[in-house]
């Protein structure tokens, strides 16, 4: 292991430089549309994605910075997906920023820093690096949420997000310090070795794990740590909501794998139980609460909570009776689910921004009434998103659910099969509120008659997003194989 091995951190360095450069570029432009900053950001992220994907599979895992960071296919893949989703987010968000007092250079700079934090988390190999990445990402997101300063709801959302986010970080840090105290190391692979090979006081370890899981639960937005999700999703400007609800989920997943699987697989019996409880609670609370919502963003927030339940179910099926043969299957199903979920979520929030205009946010479900007549292609895309979230074939959401159910059922234990049945029953409840959105778009008469003013670019992007959700389902074999490959390699370390 070379001590520094700089190429390992080139993507992160690139983002850091690009973030600063964007801020400088913006200083010297008078364009109210912030064109240069926007395009620089997009290009910077595109380069980042290209670096990550370019040699995502180029041989074995490499370590850098004296073992503080690691690059492996999983980290690269998750970071690349995060980069792509940020690019899409920016494309959807840009037309709406000006009228919401957010068209500033800082927006783009902070976005790049969010991605930097995500990238750091994806390649973390040390407890402190995990925390560092988490804070870089979270602080940028707090600032982004609060960027619309004179808007009461947004400010409230930023406050809530900050206070609860800080609390969650505290939980995580406390848990990590417990583990550190018990094992005497911060490096994730060494933690794994020490748990496996030394006689370590299990109470201290499990005590630490409880806090780590609580911290991760906050970041993923799983019940009972979900309180911030609906308020922040609803209150934040939609552009910020999408930045919170899209790419950071990849990071949360990455650190969940790094901490729980790569670091503490020896304690799987303990944390799996917690994940199962959180998963079922998330499915129940998310799906039931979403039924009662009339605000589309809030409904999608609860739907996110429910979808996280599915991901947690996938994560909880990895170790059965002390054997890890199903681990690759289980974790890759969760990862595939996550990719499918983010792809769909980008489209739904993109649509909300597409329909909003000056002084009108188009946040209520009722605002979609009769959309199939006003904009058939966009309504078609939204229909695809809703059926995908509901898990109807042939959309990608169905194959994601199939992957998770398959990972549960193929463990062969009665408990996991019952869990699978519980999960599909909750997704039946979920189907109701997704169908309601489809109903409003197709069965109701239009109430809003103002023409939709957005350009053809965003509309084409939405249609492409819809087609992607549609096509990635039946042709998801490649993506599934990539996820599985990445997870298997991450586990092999």
């Amino acid at each position, binding site marked *: 292991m070379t001590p520094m091995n700089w190429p390992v951190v080139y993507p992160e360095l690139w983002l850091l430089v690009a973030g600063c450069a964007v801020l400088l570029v913006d200083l010297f432009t008078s364009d109210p549309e912030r064109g240069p900053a926007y395009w620089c950001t997009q290009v910077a992220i595109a380069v980042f994605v290209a670096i990550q994907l370019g040699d995502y599979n180029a041989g074995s895992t490499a370590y850098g910075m004296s073992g503080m960071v690691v690059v492996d296919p999983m980290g690269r893949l998750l970071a690349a997906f995060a980069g792509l989703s940020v690019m899409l987010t920016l494309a959807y968000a840009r037309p709406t920023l000006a009228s919401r007092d957010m068209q500033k250079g800082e927006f783009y700079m902070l976005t790049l820093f969010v991605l930097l934090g995500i990238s750091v988390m994806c390649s973390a190999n040390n407890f402190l690096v995990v925390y560092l990445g988490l804070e870089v990402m979270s602080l940028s997101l707090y600032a982004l949420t609060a960027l619309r300063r004179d808007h009461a709801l947004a400010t409230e959302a930023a406050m809530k997000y900050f206070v609860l986010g800080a609390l969650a970080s505290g939980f995580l840090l406390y848990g990590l310090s417990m583990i550190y105290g018990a094992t005497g190391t911060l490096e994730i692979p060494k933690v794994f070795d020490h748990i496996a090979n030394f006689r370590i006081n299990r109470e201290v370890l499990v005590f630490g794990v409880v806090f780590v899981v609580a911290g991760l639960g906050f970041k993923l937005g799983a019940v009972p740590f979900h309180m911030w999700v609906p308020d922040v999703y609803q209150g934040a400007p939609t552009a910020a909501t999408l930045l919170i609800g899209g790419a950071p989920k990849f990071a949360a997943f990455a650190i969940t794998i790094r901490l729980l699987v790569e670091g503490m697989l020896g304690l799987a019996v303990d944390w799996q139980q917690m994940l199962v409880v959180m998963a079922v609670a998330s499915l129940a609370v998310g799906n039931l609460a979403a039924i009662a919502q009339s605000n589309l963003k809030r409904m999608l927030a609860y739907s996110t909570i429910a979808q996280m339940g599915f991901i947690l179910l996938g994560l909880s099926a990895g170790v059965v009776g002390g054997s890890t043969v199903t681990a690759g299957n289980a974790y890759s199903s969760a990862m595939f689910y996550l990719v499918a979920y983010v792809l769909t979520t980008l489209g739904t929030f993109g649509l909300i921004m597409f329909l909003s205009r000056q002084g009108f946010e188009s946040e209520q479900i009722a605002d979609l009434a009769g959309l199939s007549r006003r904009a058939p292609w966009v309504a*078609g895309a939204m229909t695809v998103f809703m*059926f995908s979230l509901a898990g*109807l*074939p*042939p959309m990608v959401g*169905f*194959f994601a659910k*199939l*992957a998770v*159910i*398959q990972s549960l*059922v*193929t463990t*062969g234990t009665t408990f996991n*099969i019952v869990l*699978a*049945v519980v999960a*599909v*029953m909750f*997704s*039946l409840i979920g*189907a*109701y509120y997704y*169908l309601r959105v*489809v*109903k409003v778009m*197709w*069965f109701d008469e239009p109430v809003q008659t103002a023409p939709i003013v957005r350009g053809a670019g965003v509309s084409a992007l939405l249609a492409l997003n819809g087609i992607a959700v549609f096509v990635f389902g*039946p042709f*998801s*074999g490649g993506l*599934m*194989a990539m996820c*599985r490959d990445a997870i298997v390699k991450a586990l092999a370390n």
Partner: protein
Amino acid sequence: MGLLSLAIWLPIAFGTLLLAVGRDENAGVVRAIALVGAVASFLVTIPVITGFNGSTAAMQYAENLDWVPRFNIHYALGVDGLSMWFVPLTAFITVIVVIAAWQVIEQRVASYMGAFLILSGLMVGVFCAMDGLLFYVFFEATLIPMYIIIGVWGGPNRVYAAFKFFLYTLLGSLLMLVALVYLYFKSGGSFDILAWHKLPLPLHTQTLLFFAFFAAFSVKVPMWPVHTWLPDAHVEAPTGGSVVLAAIMLKLGAYGFLRFSLPIAPDASREYAWVIIALSLIAVLYIGLVALVQQDMKKLVAYSSIAHMGFVTLGFFMFNTLGVEGAIVQMISHGFVSGAMFLCIGVLYDRVHSREIASYGGVANTMPKFAAFAVLFSMANCGLPGTAGFVGEWMVILGAVKYNFWIAFLASTTLVFGAAYTLWMVKRVYFGDVANDHVRELQDIDGREFLMLGLLAAAVLAMGLYPKPFTDVMNVSVAELLKHVAVSKLN
């Protein structure tokens, strides 16, 4: 591209084309494209009939491609004697539906036609799929166009009916999904239906699988007591929706019993046959009585569909050739007859805008040609010899006599109830004096309506007078199925 692939994807391609380019401004072109698409889709299914080899139970026109290698899912198609007739039947009914909607649907024509064409392709896919997951994908995907059809072009209470239809069906299917994945696990990572047929399973596993499949298929058939979505859906759906629902969609469930429940869980099927038989008899007896008291013509036919489908499920679980063949014949004939019944109601509804029996009376005086068709179809509905309705019911009753006389006795009461509710409706709607001014002003059917009713009447009579071509192709497959079911799979 294989023949079956063509039968699936041709209508879907036409439907997608319509959705993409169709607008209400060019409705004429849209209708023409839809008709061409429907007819072409029907024509490509003709070789399936003519080239079918009835002397083997093996899958014919088989196609098999890798689809999702990660889960070993295949794009596997094939038909045997059990499923062959449903491929042309589906395409045929779609042609009728397109003709029926020609003038009636004026709003969003392209979406309507597109939805039906896509639905047609998906339903053909259900009958052809030989991979468990491919079956599920088609089975579930049919919900989306039907949900839109009921919700957009339906009656006043359409939203409620569309949701009820969707959620009821989804409830059953989701349990089936878990069962399919469980079979995938048990068979060592395969979704091949034929491999599942050979898979030995202990009784308690078979029982769980049987009831998971039962949940999916009994809702779809529908069997008592999960039938309540059907009258709502039928009443609210536009005529075309009702026709497809009754003629094809209900058969998806019945077909599922044949393809999954019986061969995959034969021991559980024999063990719990009494459940199915009891529920089928309730459908025949109780639902028959319910049909008798309906005021709404569509509701009456909807309940009569449930009763007739009760015959189908009854026939399957008699475990003898007459029962199973009769049930399949009943499925085909019910496709023609129920479709025709709903079309007749549609013809009246388009003119008077009422489905109440009480709004009519003496229609035969003003619409003699139409009344002739309607009475023919009604006779078929109550199983008059010489019509399609008779053959299947007769065979199932004969099969039931072999199984148990009293079951046959109870089942045959349907001939009384069926005649009662159907003929009483015929009497009140078509015969007697002209009841009111609406009826007095009725115009008899035009060429378009004559064509669609005439096609169905020809099919109903042909099948009633000479059912041999229908039963010949299924003999070997049914014999093979029964042989398979008779052997225990316990290990």
